């Protein structure tokens, strides 16, 4: 799992993740992800378009960050999951508690509403 911070300011955090969100990936890069997202405290969009594998430890990382942001009044959205990763998120029920969008434009629209 790799964490790329595209934007981080008082208005928005935009992070792109790639690789495997499994025990190995989350133990290695989960801290950097949380620092970038919950640590910044702004509304956040996490792009999963290049994530190839999602285990429950990865889902918990996303949920924990969403909860931290929501507790501080900020919003959290997942963007662009595809294939089996999208299927995993859907069947686990994550998409029922965290907004899932198909593009950055949709995320910006969601946050401006």
């Amino acid at each position, binding site marked *: 799992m790799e964490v790329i911070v595209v934007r981080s300011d008082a208005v928005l955090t935009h992070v792109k993740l790639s690789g495997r969100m*499994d*025990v*190995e990936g989350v*133990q290695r890069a989960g801290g950097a992800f949380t620092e970038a997202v919950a640590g910044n405290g702004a509304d956040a969009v996490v792009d999963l378009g290049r994530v190839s*594998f999602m*285990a*429950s*430890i990865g*889902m*918990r990382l996303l*949920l924990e960050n969403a*909860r931290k942001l929501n507790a501080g009044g900020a919003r959290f959205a*997942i963007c*662009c*999951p*595809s*294939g*089996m*990763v*999208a*299927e*995993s*998120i*859907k*069947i*686990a*029920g*994550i*998409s*029922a*508690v965290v907004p*899932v*969008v*198909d593009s950055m434009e949709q995320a910006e629209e969601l946050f401006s509403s």
Partner: protein
Amino acid sequence: MPSIYVEEMPRSWEAMKEVVRDVRAWLEGRGISDGAQYVAEVVLEEMLANAVEHGGMGEISVSALVEEERIELCFEDTGPAFDPGMKEPRFPEKGGGGQGGLGLHHVRTLARSMDYERSGGRNVVTISVDRWSPAPGPGSGGG
């Protein structure tokens, strides 16, 4: 039928990650579909993580067998008995108390079948995955 057996994996994250890597690599050479590979990796990851996290002391054994139509993964450990029943994960946002059960729910939903028995003080879980499971196309979003 081709098979792989890992006996007495120590209950540690490092050992778990090594076994996941080994079994994944072994499955990659077995001519199974991409969807089946993904589901088998979910099964491995979730079952071993569960055993390391909640299983107490003792070692874990893992085996994988590739048959004509399915992949069978078997996990044995000496941890406490557990309920493998089909429970929905519990989200505080939806009035639940945490996100317990996420891993087992993930496995049960993707796999063809999951059988559990407690035998001789051991948990024995046998999970079957369709060998030719299709992978969803790139357009299948998670909304």
